[in-house]
């Protein structure tokens, strides 16, 4: 079984601030980390390696600094990591990104044979589109399961899994080869073992440029991106809630809360319906 994990390096969101004047993220001095959702894809890949003896490649597109994210990814005990880095890839939207990643995956295929499963995180903490995984599935012509929350069974040519929908969950059979994008519910990323960590610290990822993966510069990066960012906004700071009771006895506080709640139509409706269903005591 051959597996490729797509990861992204993002600014550590716990440290990100927004410049209120320019509306841009203040990236200076903010450490980069593996996108949190991608951690769950890496964990799944590590499990596939352990249980199904999979060969796992990790791939990302980005500037040379993204090597750090790839080294971290190797600490999950995975086989190799590939950085797609070229000026021609810069300024990419999700369409161009999927093209470059697709070319990268094809190149990996030349080395290890047909890729059975491509894993990705649900979405990136900085862009939040959730489009790259599905886009790569389309380019590869693979079946797609997005928002995977649990995996029941992996068979020779299909996977039985559960994915999250807007309301509720859906259990599906997915034909291999496939692309899965995973949610944090799927698993708990491991705390790497010391031997794997040491290997990752010493590991040097493979770096490929546009010629290595035979990418068409017109389809990659800025020139391959129809998306233009015209404007960005920050939602206005949320106004704090009203305090309806302060330092009062629980009885009075509860009564005040009830009075407030009754101002909502939906609450009054339930109150009215109680006559129909009767009080459960």
């Amino acid at each position, binding site marked *: 079984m051959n597996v490729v994990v797509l990861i992204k390096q993002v600014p550590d969101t716990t440290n990100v601030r927004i410049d209120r004047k320019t509306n841009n993220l203040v990236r200076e001095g903010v*450490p980069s980390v593996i996108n949190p959702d991608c951690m769950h894809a890496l964990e799944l890949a590590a499990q596939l390696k352990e249980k199904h003896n999979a060969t796992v490649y990790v791939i990302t597109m980005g500037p040379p600094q993204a090597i750090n994210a790839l080294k971290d990814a190797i600490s999950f005990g995975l086989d190799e990591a590939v950085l797609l880095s070229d000026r021609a890839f810069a300024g990419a939207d999700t369409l161009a990104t999927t093209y470059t990643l697709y070319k990268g995956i094809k190149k990996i295929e030349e080395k290890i044979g047909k890729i059975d499963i491509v894993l990705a995180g649900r979405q990136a903490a900085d862009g939040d589109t959730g489009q790259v995984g599905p886009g790569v599935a389309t380019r590869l012509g693979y079946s797609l399961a997005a928002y995977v929350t649990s995996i029941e069974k992996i068979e020779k040519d299909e996977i039985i899994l559960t994915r999250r929908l807007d309301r509720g969950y859906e259990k599906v059979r997915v034909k291999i080869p496939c692309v899965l994008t995973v949610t944090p519910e799927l698993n708990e990323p491991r705390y790497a*073992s*010391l*031997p794997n960590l040491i290997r990752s*610290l010493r590991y040097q990822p493979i770096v490929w440029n546009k010629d290595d993966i035979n990418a068409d510069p017109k389809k990659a990066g800025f020139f391959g991106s129809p998306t233009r960012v015209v404007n960005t906004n920050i939602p206005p700071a949320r106004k704090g809630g009203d305090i309806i009771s302060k330092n009062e006895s629980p009885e009075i506080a509860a009564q005040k809360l009830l009075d407030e709640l009754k101002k909502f139509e939906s609450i009054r409706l339930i109150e009215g319906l109680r006559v129909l269903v009767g009080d459960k005591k």
Partner: protein
Amino acid sequence: MIKFDVVVIGGGPAGLSAALTLAKSGMEVAVVEKGEYAGSKNVMGGVLYTHPLLEIVDNAVERMVNEKAVERSVIEQNMFLLGNGSVLKVGHRNPEWKNTPNAFTVLRAKFDQWFAKIVEEAGVLIITKTKVEDFIWENGKIKGVITSRPEGEIYCKAVIIAEGVNPILTMKAGLRKEDIKPNMAAVAVKEVIDMPEDIINTAFNVDSKSGVTYEILGEWSEGMFGMGFLYTNKDSISIGCGVLIEELKHRNIKPYQLLDNLKNHPIISDIIGEYKNNVKEYLAHLIPEGGYYSIPQLYGDNVLVCGDAAMLVNSIHREGSNHAITSGRLAAETLVDAFNKGEISKKTLKSYVERLKESFILKDLEKYKDLMPTMEKNQHFIELYPSLFNRLATRFLTVDGTPKTDVEWQIIDSLRNERGLIGLGMDALKLWKGVR
């Protein structure tokens, strides 16, 4: 099985300096650091002396400046005695320090990462996000460390403990019987306040490469013995203070209240002005201030202690990181000698203490060994003198038609009334004994 020649516990200045020295002698070294990166958990006021780095890093000063590891070269140092709304200052400025930097103001997260990069270039493996939890013992000797990671054992021939002020592993190694006590450590709190570079240059009368330090005694500390400080960084200032835990506990005062006192003192408030609320970072840490008497056993079979873990801090002179870097180097040099002799034991590692005694580290700590206890026992040093001296200065410098002879007698009278001439004499004697 993972094997190294030496495992260094802790990626602060002491540990990094030890690791670098060992790696230069061709040893296989692993530094195990529990923080996310070297320096992520480290705090200090912010003055780093250059001399210990010159010993271990080639072109240390040029590299630090060019690679932006440091903020400003300190060309002016001041001591402030804060009175009630006033200040008595002593200071020294020497622009020659621009050419041969004596000290830099630093932000530790930046500096430590720079230092770690140099150490990695020398071939040291720095393992971060990993905690050493215990030692591997064989026949009563340390044979390695057990980390928090799965399959986390590392075997080695020797261990250098540079774990910092909390001596958890020093105790596990049997080199310290009891945990540090509240009178052996200060809590230091600090804010990094954003201030534009050109405003700092104007306010402190310096160019962009040069900086100023203030050490601040007096009013803010509510009579407790503690040191406040204000240092200029490139485009921010570090302001903070430290007081012994025991005193805070005894007086039931929170450290941030003292920092507020300091920031709100009219003199300090004037300096930082409208930037007072531009707090970018708030930091707090324990500083070992037990001095000479709190130093643990510094060596054992296959093990040495350095830096804060060895309590090697000269709190009177705000020196700690230079002790850390130097003690790390000396510990490493001791080990290298022991490796060359082919015997790593108490017998060969004992010379570490000799090396420390020959260096400024133990000489300085011994010199000041009784000063802290003297200060603690004599609260009036801090309660009385800063405000008294401020009042005397005001009296002396206020010209209101009083003849100078009368002014002198007024000053002598207030000294007599507030402390008594015998008391003054005794205090001078105590102080002299403390620093002799």
